[in-house]
């Protein structure tokens, strides 16, 4: 087993004139749940489809479980399971048949685990696939993937159609997978889910990686809001590095500060004399929204663009 389950560098994929992936880098370590985030159309699904050997990259390198996802597709697929974001099934087959078929094509499935998952996700396997709702189709693909004995799970927005109860169940199951030493790449829009499950996340936008790291690291990169009432009107706050949206109204101050520059700002405030102080830690939402909404980089790499806008 290699230490990196997925290693992607400089990946480019063009669909006609549009560049769906534009030099993407992505590293997923073995044994972690890696959150894969980005706005719609950022290239998450395209990346996963390249990792599955369904699409051929135009440039760049991709390694999956130590192999080439295009050339070694069938061997690699024995060791992974995939749940697409929009599950379509054969309308005339029952859910149970689809679960068994996909499991067998992958190289076998644990009947005990299958029964347990059917119970947990509350799915009737006798219904024909045409009568399943979106959520139930999603469950069929999830159970087929989770009941297989594989090293890597590629999950593309797997909970998009699940109700909150099932979503909680999904989180539980994935935590267990982690204990079993499996690696999971989880593409998701549900931040609570990402926060609960993922040690590390990668955020992509317009086909490029814009941020990657542990959640703690990412939090650190974001801003804290501070409102304070001071003993006297402050001065020199605007010159401090890392201060944004500064509003001074007499002795009242509102500002946002990059988390790593918090120390300097507090020292300055204390020097003036603090009467009241409220500080709001950055939420994950703010973090993601900032990345999702950021301007398209005019040129150069996105990472630097990020530095500049800070």
């Amino acid at each position, binding site marked *: 087993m290699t230490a990196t389950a997925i290693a992607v560098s400089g990946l480019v994929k063009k669909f006609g004139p549009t560049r769906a992936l534009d030099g993407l880098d992505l590293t997923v370590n073995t044994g972690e749940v890696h959150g894969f985030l980005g706005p719609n159309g950022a290239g998450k699904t395209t990346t996963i489809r390249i990792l599955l050997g369904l699409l051929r990259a135009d440039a760049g390198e991709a390694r999956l479980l130590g192999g080439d996802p295009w050339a070694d597709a069938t061997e690699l697929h024995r060791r992974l399971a995939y749940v697409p974001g929009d599950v379509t099934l054969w309308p005339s087959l029952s859910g149970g048949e689809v679960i068994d078929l996909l499991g067998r*094509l992958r190289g076998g499935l644990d009947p005990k685990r299958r029964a347990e998952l059917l119970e947990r996700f509350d799915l009737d396997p006798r219904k*024909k696939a045409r009568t399943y709702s979106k959520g139930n189709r999603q469950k069929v693909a999830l159970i087929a993937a989770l009941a297989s004995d594989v090293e890597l799970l590629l999950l593309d927005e797997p909970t998009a159609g699940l109700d909150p109860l099932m979503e909680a169940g999904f989180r539980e199951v994935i935590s267990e997978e982690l204990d079993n030493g499996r690696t999971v790449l989880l593409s998701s829009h549900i931040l609570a889910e990402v926060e609960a499950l993922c040690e590390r996340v990668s955020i992509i936008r317009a086909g490029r990686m814009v941020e990657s790291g542990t959640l703690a690291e990412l939090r650190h990169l974001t801003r804290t809001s501070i409102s304070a009432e001071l003993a006297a009107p402050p001065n020199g706050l605007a010159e401090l590095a890392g201060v944004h949206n500064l509003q001074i109204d007499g002795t009242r101050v509102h500002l946002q500060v990059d988390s790593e520059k918090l120390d300097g700002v507090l020292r300055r405030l204390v020097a003036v004399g603090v009467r009241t102080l409220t500080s709001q830690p950055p939420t994950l939402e703010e973090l993601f929204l900032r990345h999702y909404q950021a301007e398209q980089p005019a040129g150069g790499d996105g990472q630097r663009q990020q530095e500049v806008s800070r």
Partner: protein
Amino acid sequence: MTSLAGTRGLIRLILRRDRFLLPLWVLVLALLPIQTAVGIDQFYSTPAALRELYGTITSTPGLLAMLGPVFGATLGAITAWRAGLVLTVVGLASMLSVIRHTRTDEEAGRRELLGSTVVGRNAPLAAALLVTLAADLVLGALLAAGMVGLGLPGTGSVAYGLSVVAAGWMFAAVGAVAAQLTEGAGAARGIGLGTLGVAYMLRAAGDTGGSDSGVGWLSWLSPIGWAQQTRAYADERWWVFALPVALVVVLVSAAFALLARRDVGAGVMAPRLGPATAAPGLRSPVALAWRLQRTALLAWTAGLALMGALIGSVADSVKNMANESSQLKDVLERLGGEKVLSDAYISGAMVIFALAAAGYAIQATLRLRSEEEGQRAEPVLATSVGRVQWAFSHLLFGLLGPAVALLAAGLAEGLVYGLVVGDVGGELPRVAAGALVQVPAVLVLSGLAMALFGLLPRLAPVSWAALAASAFLVLIGPLLRLSHWLLDLAPFSHIPKVPGADVSAVPLAWLLGIAAVLAVAGLAGFRRRDIVSTA
């Protein structure tokens, strides 16, 4: 009536959604017969030439089976005959149009969204029917006007236009009923297509032996037969129009009655539960393909076998036609006796079987495309199934399926014909061989479909155009006296006319070779390309 509230708005919605599709099929179907009339007028400009053509048609059972009876030696009557398939196609288009705007919407959940607005229970079906029936009427009017414009008699042109309208209306009504029966639009289309297929086959079987074959009554069991029996341009029989009108009234009332008894989203036939676990055999791509393709394979095999049995039962009576013409008899005796006529009839029918089998071959092969576009290829290809392995699982049905269906047709035809003439042991192998020699030509079309799927997936439907062109060349080409090299483009032109002619292996080997090269090229192309997704 509140149950019809909102119908007007829905009609506008359908017209908006189908603003290209609807005018397209109406125009194409209107232009085809007009174009045909112009063509026939060019090649057969004198009454004598038309009479000669009339003679050829009436003595060629394959043509009668394919297109229907011809009722006169005039330009109008022969045009109406030649464009006979328009009746089937307008039926198909009308049926699909109704299902598309009823059951398909309902299955997709769009009907529910509409149902929550001010739309009456019957409005969607009423709107779909009104639009489709009106489109058929426009088509009929265009046809009649076009024919009159070409100088054909007015009465005949009106009857002709109305016969096309009748065919469209009857199958629109069939579609309306089918849409009430099942939960899935696919299954509803299946019921509709099956009905259309049976109607076509009954008519084909009834018409194949000419007017005095003894099975002519079969045509009268078929709605398509009714449309033809109105005899446009040949002493129109107006009373026959009572039959389509009655059928439409009955079916449309039935559809609304069924609609009133069921829930939105549900079908009259309740969906059955499936097994909770897969059978032990469902563990390979071929097993999945068999699950998905078996119904079509069995239906085509049964359909072709039925056609074979019908042709076999009338083949012997074809020689009676020769008795009416002493000149024909002389020619026949020089060629080897009356049996030649039956043999020619049987081998002529084989061409029709081969074209039908090729339609099935393309359908089975292009299942690959619909699986890919429907994103059902992706989950399979994400397992340890290789691309070639997956593609081959469906291609297998495109290659072996038509052979099985043709063999069934040949065996059924040989058996029945053998029983009629009292020589099963002698006739069964001869007739079955006649069916089997068609296989290489059919496989060329499977190969073409595979090549397009692998190399130019967007153009995969061109396979159907190739089949249409082949059918045109092999059936109509000789009548239009097209040049030989043009006729040779159709793979079916190279098949020996068995029973009767000697079999030479060379053209068959060539066809098999071409089919193999095309299929392998398709598989190789598919290994290299991206899997399409709509996401």
